[in-house]
């Protein structure tokens, strides 16, 4: 069954390998130009393209996995063999997952090198977090299984892909929104506002002594007006004096670079869990189909 699963999708997998080779080549060229003005200027657009890539790769391979069989009617052939539907689907998903996971895993070290060579940000910050590390593999695998699940329900590869794009984007947005809470952030406390710490800054503001988060019914900026008011009254007073008088201190809440890998694994785990859910959904859809 493994050979059949490979052979049926061979063209798609080879095309995906070719695409990944091209991407790898481009990353090598772009990164070895180093800090040239051209690479700095284009890196923002590059990052947008790169963050979409795992999703598009996974979706295009996954959408045709089951849906193509439905479209051509070969599902009837496959399901009237001695192999059970579960094994049939498991083989197809396994071969696909190995190809998708393997291709993206090959890109991961290259992406890490590229982001260091071309960009001057920190990897834990959202812009670079999406395109480096293990999450790339997580995104691709989730997109692959999502495509397979939608294909099993929609029975047409093209429309499954079209439906998968907004669903994948929504999933990425939702997880991105909770990303900052996956690992407890670090609080840096200062008497008054200093320079930004090195990391992904989440929140900052004046908070009362003894607190590192705003109180009930307050936000990070509600108390800053007290310091500002003091400033306007006594313009020669420093910010430190104003904060001290109001019993406030400045707090930076951020994710330092050291949390990078724990955040990466946490987010990858979420997407792998979602991928497993999609695989189950595909299995259910395949079993329910009256061939």
């Amino acid at each position, binding site marked *: 069954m493994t050979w059949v699963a490979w052979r049926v999708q061979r063209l798609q997998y080879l095309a995906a390998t070719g695409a990944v080779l091209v991407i790898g080549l481009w990353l090598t060229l772009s990164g070895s130009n180093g800090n040239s003005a051209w690479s700095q200027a284009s890196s923002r657009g590059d990052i947008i393209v790169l963050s979409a890539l795992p999703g598009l790769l996974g979706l295009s391979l996954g959408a045709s996995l089951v849906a193509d069989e439905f479209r051509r009617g070969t599902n009837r052939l496959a399901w009237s063999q001695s192999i059970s539907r579960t094994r049939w689907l498991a083989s197809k998903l396994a071969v696909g997952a190995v190809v998708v996971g393997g291709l993206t895993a090959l890109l991961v070290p290259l992406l890490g090198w590229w982001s260091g060579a071309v960009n001057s940000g920190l990897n834990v910050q959202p812009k670079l977090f999406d395109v480096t590390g293990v999450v790339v593999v997580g995104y691709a695998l989730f997109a692959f299984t999502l495509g397979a699940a939608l294909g099993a329900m929609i029975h*047409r*590869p*093209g*429309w*499954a*892909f*079209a439906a998968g*794009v907004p669903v994948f984007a929504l999933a990425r947005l939702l997880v991105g929104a909770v990303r900052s809470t996956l690992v407890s952030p670090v609080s840096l406390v200062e008497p008054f506002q200093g320079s930004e710490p090195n990391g992904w800054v989440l929140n900052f503001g004046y908070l009362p002594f003894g607190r590192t988060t705003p109180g009930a019914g307050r936000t990070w900026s509600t108390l800053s007006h007290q310091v500002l008011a003091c400033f306007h009254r006594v313009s020669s007073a420093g910010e430190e004096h104003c904060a001290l008088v109001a019993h406030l201190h400045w707090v930076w809440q951020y994710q330092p670079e050291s949390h990078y890998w724990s955040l990466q694994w946490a987010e990858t785990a979420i997407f792998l869990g979602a991928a497993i859910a999609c695989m189950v959904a595909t299995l259910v859809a395949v079993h329910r189909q009256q061939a």
Partner: protein
Amino acid sequence: MTWVAWRVQRSTILAAIAVVSVLALWLVATGLVMGHSQTWKYWTDADVYVLFALPGVLGLAIGAPLIAGESNLGTDRLATTQSVTRARWLTYKLLVGGFATAGIVLVLTLILRWWTGAVSVSALTQSGGFSGVRIQPDAFDLTGLVVVGYTLFAFFLGTALGTVIRKPGWAFSLGLPIFAAARIVVQDWLRPHLVAPAVYTNLMERASAAAMNSWMLNLALLPANRTSPPPGKTWAWWDWTKSYTTCTSQPNLTNAEDAHCAVLAHVHFVFQYQPESHYWALQGIETAIFLALALLLLGLTVIKVKRWRI
């Protein structure tokens, strides 16, 4: 032939009408609420992204299965072996699909015009008298003729891709990024200059009322004899001559002294903007661009279909 063309596309068009009706109901409901209370917030909700995507998705959803659906199901052989010529068959299908799409979108545009009108009133009366809502890129895209232009472009893009790709789902999927790219290119690079922008100059960094209530394109400190950046420079280059910076860095500068510094240094502030009065001209030209692209794609569709060797 009209009946056949309608019958083949009936389910897609009815589904499109259903979706747009739901949207229209939401617009009417929020529009009535907005007219009576201070709500800019409907303008910035995620729902507005749905409105941006709608012309493209609608046009492609009806256009992609038009030809590709027939190729996919094999009914193109049936269609082209009838007594109706290929040209007539194609014409009727395109007319029924095109008019249905344009009609749906036209009704939606009228509702959107009324809805953004409510936003304009709200802005004018409650948010400090801002009157330049319709010319801002967000509102511009949703009111007026351009919406019909976008939709027809997406429709013919769908049919043209369908003749090449022959599978409706993939034609739709490929059409979406192409449509998005076309929209972004026209909106960001072409639209600011389709009609010559208005220019306001001042010795201080203070815009006129007309410039404030408009779509502000650029602002820079330029030499006094220029209203656009010198050759080889962009609007990001400000002419910070030393005399001007030393003159204005004195403490407690009055407005008159500030202006005098600018006169002495031979510089002035230039605001480049598109005023609300250019709205219809810009709408017309942008619609024309998209209709021209649509005609081009129509031509491609016709050529491809005529060359079918069934």
